[in-house]
């Protein structure tokens, strides 16, 4: 009987582990001035540029503008929008974008993003990257998950937090 119980426990452990949500690792949700920042992520790259993505939701009562981002080194990231021009894909710089109370804004591939040019270090898949998000409500340090080079969304996309 004891062996049977042990075997059952062994069989169920991986399932429980899979269902568990590891929040000891880099946080996936941040908040400043009522603005919720969910699942910030980027693609692994050895190039000198990277795009930063995230989901934003203004749960506060005042509108918050997204201004851009910055690294500890001082390197600034600017807001860009994906555009198709004459059949060529590219990005255009954008002014600060407001998120009104109750509204959402998605920074995602082939859409809106924060672009860093002139990166010095390689971004390795599975690691995380510390970025300072610049908003009209203040500056906020966020942990950015580095996904695979060809990832199109955050590994936890679709989860509810």
């Amino acid at each position, binding site marked *: 009987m004891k062996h049977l119980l042990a075997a059952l426990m062994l069989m169920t452990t991986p399932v429980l582990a899979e269902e568990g949500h590891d929040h000891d690792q880099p946080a996936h949700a941040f908040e400043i001035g009522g603005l919720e920042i969910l699942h910030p992520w980027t693609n692994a790259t050895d190039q000198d540029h990277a795009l930063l993505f995230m989901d934003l939701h203004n749960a506060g009562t005042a509108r918050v503008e997204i201004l851009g981002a910055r690294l500890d080194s001082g390197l600034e990231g600017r*807001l860009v*929008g*994906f*555009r*198709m*021009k*004459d*059949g*060529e*894909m590219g990005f*255009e710089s*954008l*002014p600060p*974008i*407001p*998120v009104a109370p109750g*509204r*959402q*804004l*998605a920074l995602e591939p*082939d*859409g*809106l993003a924060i672009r860093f040019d002139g990166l010095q270090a390689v971004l390795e898949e599975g690691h995380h990257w510390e970025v300072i998000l610049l908003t009209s409500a203040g500056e906020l340090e966020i942990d950015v998950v580095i996904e695979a080079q060809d990832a199109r969304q955050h590994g936890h996309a679709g989860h509810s937090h």
Partner: protein
Amino acid sequence: MRDSWDSLPVLAQDLIIAGALLLPLLVIGGILLRGFRPLPLVRALMWRFRWANLLFVLLIAVSTGMGIGLIAQERGLRTGSAQAAEKFDLVVTAPGSELTMMLAAVFLQPSAVPLLDGAAYDRIANHPQVQIAAPIAFGDSHDGAPVVGTIAEFVTYLSDGQIEGRIFARSGEAVVGAAIDLRIGDRFTPAHGRGSGADAEAHDGVGIEVVGRMARSGSPWDRAILIPVETVWEVHGLANGHPFEDGDRIGPPFTPELFPGTPAVIVHAGELWANYALRSEFTVAGETMAFFPGTVLADLYRVMGDVRQAMSVMSIVTQVLVAASVLLGLFILTRLFQRQLAMLRALGAPRRFVMAVVWGYGVTLLVAGTMLGLAFGYAAALVLSRIVTHRTDVLVTATITWAEVNLALGFLSAMSVLSLVPALVVLTRPVVENLRQ
């Protein structure tokens, strides 16, 4: 180094790449031909074996032209489809396949798609960042051309205001695309449906008058007939979006309860950044889906990019096979005139001069074949573009760019280096034995 390269104009970069590709040919030519005049002999060889030479030139030209034509055509199709979708910043539809919705709303391909209701349209149209929220309604046709219901503001935006005649001002009027065979003042009755299954008599008694013609845009909308969305609803026996007391008024605002539904709303925002915010706001699970046609096309081009890579590999394999054939051919041709070459050597011609003659002969064939190949490639792209434009109404323009020229120059340069092999082999053959043959 990288920064210096990036700072150069694109034309300068292309010219430098072309020069680098031609460098091996120029260096070998300079070394072999220096101080000699082998051209009269090369010319004589060209004439002596003219039919065999012509066949070789054609072989090189066809293989080079095929690769160039396909690559140029793929780029033309990509550019043409992107330009056709440029006016469509953001499209809002019921949830489903973005590709299906884009093909229906932007490229006017017939498709059964779910409708957005009046409340959804009202929410989109009344958003402060939305400048134009154009409902579209399709399903009818005239002489094979789609009849699309929409609003006057969208027609003005789509044509950049370039309309011969005027915009429709009441139900029962139409503005036609540039490729439609109807004149201003003509009247027509739309058929229900499109293609072979269209019912020409379903809307008997309905007469629509053409009051304007849009300038050519290079998109499938050139072959569309635009009428007030109210007309589409009315001829199908639906409410026209306005209360009875509004009389004959057309265009927004619409009363949500009297809005029969639309498969898509074309949204144009006042500012570029607003499109991204609107996309997030109008993507509501189970209710509406907002997408950028440019993004859907980008996904499509990524798939096409893979196909292009496969085509490039096939093209390279073809080129390698042709290169092998050309080399083999040069060996055979040098066998044909080995007696003459042996005579040259017996008369005391330097070994380098004999090499220069054989190499110059091979390179002449290659240059002629490559130049002709570029012309073939351009002609192939031109014919394919016309066929695709005719079938899809997407204006596809054939152009040969530096990418294709450099591809051809790369092939020419590599083959000119390989042409040294038959030239060297000629020198290894015994002179006396060759003279006896």
